[in-house]
Every structure is written in structure tokens, then in C-alpha cells.
């Protein structure tokens, strides 16, 4: 039996004549963990979608266990023993966890109690704390991800492909995930995983393949890579010093107090939370999923409402405010850049210019009766240039942009409102390293201009690279504050967990 379980030779996939991948050779060994790394638009997702039968090759061949195969549907791929856990959830939100797990494996008569018991036992065997009777739509992102992973494992696949599996997981959940992947490896399952977190690739993978602009750059043992070499191969330039650079030696001095949150309550996520945000500084907010960070700042921005009874106070520029909807918050100078750009950040079928223009319209009281296409184009052009959004034109739809450029559109949509307080929630989630550097530079520039900036992130290197002061949130409230000069990853994580 060959050591190679899955191989692609000269794989090319064209979309409307444009190559997403071009003459890519890829080999996956039996029982290995293989990381696929590359910037957004490098062709990682396309390559894995070919393996999983989501798309078919334009030219080239694919072999599974030495036999040529060309799966045309995910079901065909599953029959070949290949399962994929998608970046965007492919679960049915109105069904329960157990029903989602056994979706496609229904028998003539399914006994609900039976599948709940089976699902419970299975989830426990994976050490996943998910209730099988819970409706998937009501679960958080991390738990949905767990269900996706569990479903792939349940199908006893020989090859499991993970597309950005850890993007929504907390550090603790990541550890569980890593243990699970290693356990799968011990059982002889081959793993392909895509990740933007390079440390994960270095820690977890046996081998790493790097793609750039749809082409294969290098495949080598993970032991032969370091962060600098990966980044160099990914982007063709040395970014390691600019991305999550060396330890901070100076921090910005705090300006006037812009925002004060006092004893804020929003059951069950925010519990008596108090914090302050100052002008001319980046305030980093770190915490595990469920720490109430996003919810706190969504209350500030009017996206969520605080508790009706004794819900605490939000004080903006010394005056108590209470926003029931985001529009008055926007007019008061608060911008919230969402963590879930695809759902809350933009209208994906509208053009870049129109999306940015919408941000401007949100600031105008009562909106406008007549909209100006010329103004929209002008505003769009200015911000596309300012934030270096890589789009073929102003009228390009946002859905056609890469993740990093989509994020820039979301940011432009907020910055066009000229806010005083800008809240970035996971600003670089699912964004390629090139765009991360640009977004980080933009955030730093905003603080230098005297804006009050909040960065909520679950990624410690990002928090440490950006923040002047770091607030650590745990179980619904801020429990610790560090200056960027004194903070270490260990100290922050200790505060977040204990």
C-alpha cells in the first residue's frame, strides 16, 4: 500500500478564465497532519474544495489511494473517505446538534431519543461540551465549529480537511482541538488544515505546503520552517518584523476619558462590567469566548441593549448615554467594526462604493430621500484609495473581494462616519498576513490622530502588538489591566483563565 493517500497533479481550476489554482502538485501522506498556508486568494480553499468534491478541476488529476478519482459532489468525496469542515458553517441552524450530526445518515425510521443518546456519547468521547438537544442556530461560533468537527469525525473519514478550524475557537478550545487532531492522526486519519495562525501550522503540522497566487511555492517538513520563512514564502517579502513585531518599549499617553462603562449588566454575558477608554490610545480587550467583551461594546454601540432593570451606565464624553439602536451611537461618534463581517459587516451583493456610502448615510439623521450615485462613487473612490482596497473597480461587489479587502470595506464604512471612538472586534480574523499589516497600521494611525481605539481580539500576539493598555475580561467583566510595557502572554492568559 502506497504511503500517499491523496495526490493532485498539475491541478488547475479556472473561474471565468482566471486561475484560482494553477499546476499545483500536492501530496498527502497517510496519517500526517498537513498545513496549507497562504495569503487570502492564494488558492488554499479552492485546492481543498477540489479534494472535497465541492468544485471540479479544469485540468489535472486527483488520486485517492493510488486510484484516479474526480468527486463531483461532497457526497461522492465522502464515499471516497474525504470529509471537509468548512470555514462558513454548513450546519442547518433550525435543527438540533444531534440531527445535524446524523444528517445524511437517516434511516427509514429515526428514533430521536436514540440519536440524542448516540450523539451525547459521541460528543463526550471527543470531550466536546455541546448539548445534543440544543438548536444549532442558538449556539455560539465555537460550539458550531465543534459540531462541524464532530460530524467529520463521525463519518469516519480517511482524510479530513479543516478550513480555518481555529478562527472562532478560544485558546482553551484550540488546545482541545489540537489534542483531537493528534488523536485522529494516531487513528491513521490524514488531516489537511488551512490556518492563518502560523504558530498553529508550526506546532501542529508534520508538513507545510505554501501557496501564493494560486501556485505551489514550497512543501517541506514543519521542522524545517520558522515564522520568518513561512511569511517570506507566503508573501514574497519579509513581514515578520512588521507583523506582531518586537516587544513595545513605549506606549501612548492617555488623553481625555472618552468612554466610561460603569457596572454594566446584560444577562447572562455581561456581569457588572466597568472600564474606561481614553483618547489617543489603543485599548486592547482580551478574553476567552464568553468573557462578555463583544457584548459589552455592542451595548456601547447600541447593537445590544443592557439589562432593563439596574443595567448600569455608559458615559460618553462625561454624559450618560443609552442607545437602543445603533443610529444615535453612530451620530454620537461611535463606530463598531463587527467581528462577523459576512453577517453584520456589509451587503455582499452591493458594490464597494455603495457599502461605504451606506456608512455615511447612517450618520445622517433621518437618512436621505434622494441618493447620489456620484457622491457614492466619490466617497467610495476616496476610501478605496485611502485603505488600499484591492478591487478592480468601485462597482465591484464586496462578495468578490478577498477576506482582507472585505474587512477593509467594513472598516471604511465605519471610518467614513468620522468617529471619535472606534471599536474593532477581531479586526483581522480570517484576514491574510499582508492585509493584517495594513489594518494594524491603520489602527495605529487612528490612535496617533487622537482617536479612542478599542481592539477586541482573542489572538494574544495581536493584542500585544497593538495595545497601549490591555484589559483582560473574564466571565462578563474586566478583571485585570496591564500596561503594554508590563504585559506578557503568560500574565494575560493567567488573568483570563483564573
Amino acid at each position, binding site marked *: 500500500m502506497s504511503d500517499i493517500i491523496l495526490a493532485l497533479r498539475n491541478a488547475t481550476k479556472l473561474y471565468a478564465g482566471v486561475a484560482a489554482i494553477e499546476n499545483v502538485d500536492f501530496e498527502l501522506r497517510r496519517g500526517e497532519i498537513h498545513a496549507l498556508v497562504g495569503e487570502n486568494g492564494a488558492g488554499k480553499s479552492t485546492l481543498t474544495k477540489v479534494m472535497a468534491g465541492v468544485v471540479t478541476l479544469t485540468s489535472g488529476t486527483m488520486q485517492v489511494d493510488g486510484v484516479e478519482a474526480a468527486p463531483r459532489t461532497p457526497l461522492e468525496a465522502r464515499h471516497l473517505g474525504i470529509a471537509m469542515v468548512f470555514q462558513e458553517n454548513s450546519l442547518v441552524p433550525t435543527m438540533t446538534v444531534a440531527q445535524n450530526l446524523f444528517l445524511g445518515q437517516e434511516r427509514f425510521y429515526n428514533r430521536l431519543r436514540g440519536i440524542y443518546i448516540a450523539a451525547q456519547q459521541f460528543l463526550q468521547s471527543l470531550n466536546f461540551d455541546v448539548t445534543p438537544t440544543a438548536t444549532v442556530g442558538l449556539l455560539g461560533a465555537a460550539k458550531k465549529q465543534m459540531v462541524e468537527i464532530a460530524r467529520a469525525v463521525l463519518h469516519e473519514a480517511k482524510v479530513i480537511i479543516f478550513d480555518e478550524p481555529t478562527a472562532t475557537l478560544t485558546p482553551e478550545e484550540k488546545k482541545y482541538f489540537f489534542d483531537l487532531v493528534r488523536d485522529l492522526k494516531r487513528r491513521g486519519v490524514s488531516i489537511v488544515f488551512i490556518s492563518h495562525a502560523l504558530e498553529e501550522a508550526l506546532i501542529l503540522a508534520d508538513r507545510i505546503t505554501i501557496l501564493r497566487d494560486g501556485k505551489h511555492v514550497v512543501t517541506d517538513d514543519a521542522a524545517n520552517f520558522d515564522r520568518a520563512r513561512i511569511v517570506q514564502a507566503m508573501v514574497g517579502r519579509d513581514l515578520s518584523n512588521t507583523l506582531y513585531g518586537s516587544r513595545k518599549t513605549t506606549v501612548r*499617553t492617555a488623553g481625555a476619558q472618552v468612554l466610561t462603562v460603569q*457596572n454594566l449588566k446584560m444577562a447572562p454575558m455581561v456581569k457588572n462590567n*466597568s472600564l*474606561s477608554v481614553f483618547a489617543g490610545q489603543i485599548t486592547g480587550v482580551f478574553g476567552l469566548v464568553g468573557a462578555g467583551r463583544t457584548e459589552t461594546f455592542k451595548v456601547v454601540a447600541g447593537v445590544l441593549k443592557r439589562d432593563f432593570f439596574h443595567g448600569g451606565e455608559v*458615559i460618553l464624553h462625561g454624559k450618560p448615554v443609552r442607545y437602543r439602536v445603533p443610529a444615535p451611537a453612530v451620530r454620537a461618534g461611535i463606530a463598531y467594526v463587527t467581528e462577523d463581517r459576512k453577517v453584520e459587516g456589509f451587503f455582499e451583493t452591493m458594490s464597494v462604493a455603495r457599502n461605504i456610502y451606506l456608512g455615511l448615510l447612517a450618520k445622517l439623521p433621518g437618512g436621505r430621500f434622494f441618493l447620489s450615485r456620484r457622491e457614492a462613487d466619490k466617497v467610495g473612490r476616496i476610501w478605496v484609495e485611502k485603505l488600499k482596497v484591492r478591487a478592480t473597480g468601485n462597482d465591484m461587489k464586496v462578495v468578490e473581494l478577498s477576506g482582507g479587502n472585505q474587512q477593509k470595506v467594513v472598516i471604511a464604512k465605519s471610518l467614513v462616519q468620522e468617529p471619535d471612538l472606534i471599536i474593532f472586534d477581531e479586526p483581522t480574523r480570517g484576514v491574510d498576513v499582508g492585509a493584517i499589516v495594513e489594518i494594524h497600521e491603520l489602527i495605529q494611525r487612528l490612535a496617533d490622530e487622537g482617536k479612542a481605539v478599542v481592539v477586541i481580539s482573542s489572538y494574544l500576539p495581536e493584542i500585544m502588538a497593538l495595545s497601549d493598555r490591555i484589559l483582560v475580561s473574564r466571565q462578563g467583566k474586566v478583571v485585570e489591566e496591564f500596561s503594554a510595557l508590563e504585559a506578557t502572554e503568560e500574565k494575560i492568559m493567567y488573568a483570563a483563565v483564573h
Partner: protein
Amino acid sequence: MISAFRTFADRLLGRGDATITVPSFDGALKPNQILEKAETIAQFEAPEDLATDGKALYIADGTAILRLDGAATTEVRRFDRAISALCCLHDGGIAVALDGREVQVFATPSASAAVTFSDPSMNAVNALSPGQQGTLIATNGSTARPYRQWVHDLMERGRTGRVFVLDIAARRVRTIASGLSYAFGACAAGDAVLVSESWRHRLLAIAPDGSQRAILSNLPVYPSRLSPAASGGFWLTAFAARTQLVEFVLRENAYRRRMMAEIDPEYWIAPKLKSGQSFLEPMQGAHIKTMGVIKPWAPPRSYGLVIRLNADGLPLYALHSRVDGVNHGVVAAAEMDGALFALAKGPGRLLRMPLTMIEQELRA
């Protein structure tokens, strides 16, 4: 009618005036133990205020003015009434407030002749500071309660504080602000006068035309006296920290009235300059004692804090003595010879902190 309904709704829902929240100690006010670790250089029976002329440090202790000579103190002069405020003037003179009702100005610390200011509205003069063109700034906490009954004024939600400018040459008293919620501490800042308004937890800038502007508001503490820092800016002391429990009591009028009528003031639910003296005291933190240790972020009945402000009145950093500390009830601070002296009225201690030590501690 609408107002009454709104008040009822606010109390029911905990919003508007009935919001019981307290800002956190974060940013520049981030807690540390610098004040608690400060060197105690002297202990007094009834210390009240500090003043320096740049050469010597003077301490108002009961009815006496003492001068610090190394580690020892020398009595400079004594009065027949308790001193409630003390300051050194630019021309080498010294000014004292006696029992909060009278201000006397001496040409030198030992001079016998005095210029006396006594105004009917002077009832609780609690801080003095040199002003522009040979004037003296005085803050009067309350016209309803004497100085020693400051806690009564808080519980009555007093708003009778005043700021006076005393023209020493013309022997005239001018009121530049009134209706303040306990004025406690002032300092000249250019043409304006910075004033601590304790019960409203803020620092006001009063312009020469009398207009007021809050330059620091919603503090988590009750601010008190101000003094200039040698490198520009100010030192602001705070004698107690706000707590949600006290904020709640301040909104419960009937409860407060009964408490004031029936309970010894020593055991009121109110800020204190020292705590932990009796098991009858509320808010001792017993319920948050874990593994034999009182958590330092427990709701404090007393607290120690000195805030360093820049020239614009924005906080740069703060020196703390937290709930598990002793150096509480800081009412005065003065900078001299590269060190900060602070008076912790709770334990009656004069504390000394070299500025280099403060910088090192803040960097650590």
C-alpha cells in the same frame, strides 16, 4: 406630576438619578501599593494639613503648627483652636484656618501680628492656597455643617460649598463660587482656580469671570486638597473611595434620615478616613475574605489615594493604599526636595516617597 412619575420609574428601573454605579480604578488610576509602601517619617495625634515654602515642611497638628526637621518635628506656633487648613505664601508668610471659621495670615511663620479674615459664611474652611497677586484662595466645604462634621454634610447631600479669594492687602473677602457640593481644596492654575468638589467627584476650573468648567469628572473617589508639582501639574489627594453601597444609601432618603437619627456616626454607611477598628463597622470586607486574605478590590470603607495630574488636569498616574492597607484618608500632599510628602489622616501618618522611587515602582 410627570417629574414624580419619572422619579418613580427611575428608582424602579435603576436609571437616571437613581443609577447606582461607580467608575472603576483604571487607566491612570490603576491600583498599586506605592502609597502603602511609603516610608512613615512621623506620626501625629490630629494631623490636618501640610504646607511647604520649598525649604521646610510644615504640618498642622491639632492646634499646633510643626516644622519637620529631619525625622523630628519642632513646634512653630500654637493656637487656641484646631487648625483646619494651612498654607505657605509666596512672600514667606503663612496662613491658617482656625476651626474652619477664621483665617489668619502671618508675615512669617513665627510672626506675632496677623491679618484676620472672619466672614459669616466662613463655616468650614478646609483648604488654603496662594492665589494671584498676593491673594489667598480658601475653600469652604459647607455653610451648614462645621468642618469636623463633613460626613454629616455628605449624608445631607450638602450643596453649600464656597470658594473665597482673600485680598490680604485690602483685607477683603470675595466669593468666586458658591452652591458647590463640598469644596475641598484649591490651587491656582494660571488665571483660573482649580477646585475639588468632593460630593460631585470632580475637579472644577473657575475662570476669573466666575464661569466654571469641569476638567476632571466622575472620579471614583472623593477628591480633596490640591498642591502644585515641581515639574508642572498638580498633586490631588482623595480621602475616600466611592462604593456602590454608599451611592445607594445616598439615594435612599428615608433610610439615611433614620440612620443619621439613630446610629452613632462612627458606624454609618459612609466613607471614613480609617476602618477596621470595630466589628460594628459596615463594609469590612468579611464576605470577600478568601483563603484568609481580604481581596484588595473589596468595597473599601476607607482608602488612600494621591493622583498626579498634568498641567491640563488630566491624571498621569496614582498612588494607592488599598482596602487591605493602612495609609488611608489622605488629605494633603506636598512636594519638596525631590520627594512627595503625603498626610494619611486615618492612621495620623506623615509619609515620604522619593519621586525616583515612585517612577521605579510605576515602571516595575
